[in-house]
């Protein structure tokens, strides 16, 4: 690899990466401000309570309901901003972080991702149906297998860091 290719690859990669981060920032920062206002008005407590029966079926607490909805609609990178914040604030358990990943990893940004393939002749309802039901089935199995080993609702991030490093 010559120096010019090295430099141009480094430049292109950094430039595109920076653009990606800027795009994320443009979505994440206003979203966080909106979230803080919603939290101030205690919208989450009411929303979580309403979604709790649904998330409860997946073995998740109501705290996971909003990050779940954000990730499914907005996408993993943007939605995970909310999930990372929730995890760091200790509102998600380690188990919930894993169950959320099993669901959101395969199935996020459901509108944007699905529409990308419509020009190729793919039926969007079939595509989303297969993807979403596959992810849901997998998550249900995982939630059953990893049944409430009682754990304190500590910050998931710090806990895993310790074991990973």
């Amino acid at each position, binding site marked *: 690899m010559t120096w010019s290719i090295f430099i141009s690859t480094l430049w292109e990669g950094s430039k595109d990466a920076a653009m990606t981060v800027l795009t994320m920032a443009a979505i994440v920062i206003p979203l*966080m401000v909106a979230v803080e206002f919603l939290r101030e008005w205690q919208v989450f407590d009411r929303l979580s309570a309403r979604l709790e029966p649904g998330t409860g079926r997946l073995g998740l607490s109501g705290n996971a309901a909003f990050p779940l909805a954000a990730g499914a609609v907005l996408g993993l990178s943007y939605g995970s901003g909310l999930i990372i*914040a929730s995890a760091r604030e200790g509102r998600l358990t380690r188990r919930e972080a894993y169950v959320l990943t099993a669901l959101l990893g*395969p199935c996020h940004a459901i509108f944007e*991702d699905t529409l990308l393939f419509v020009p*190729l002749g793919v039926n969007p309802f079939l*595509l989303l149906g297969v993807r979403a039901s596959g992810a849901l089935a997998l998550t249900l199995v995982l939630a059953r297998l990893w049944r409430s080993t009682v754990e304190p609702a500590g910050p998931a991030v710090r806990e895993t860091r310790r074991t990973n490093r």
Partner: protein
Amino acid sequence: MTASPLARGLHKGLETTWILAKAVVPTYVAVYFLAQTPVLEYISRLAAPVLALVGLPGEAALPLVLGMFANLYMGVGALAPLGLGVREATICAVILTVAHNLPVESAVTRQMGVAVWFALAVRLGLACGLAFLMHLVWRP
């Protein structure tokens, strides 16, 4: 937590952007360097016989590899010119929507405390499983 919601939101947004940047930028640059080597092409050739198992032609390896290593947009961009039938395109679409942008997105889920191997296993496993099911059920 006595600050205004606006200040708190801005602070959290910037903090989260920094967390994402730390995950995204190094991975992104690394993938660009990988693209300069014959590694990706080699993987495509290697994957071709495997793709026959889910009813896909060999050339579908390129969009799948690009989509998995880089992002969904590159995957779609490489898939479009192949002119596959609706059935093959749909199977590719299921694989790609379930498992794309794996280095970056696994780094992102790692930030919430989830091991990289778990995120990869879940997404690749589900992608393969669903593709195989579709290949079985949707006969040409």
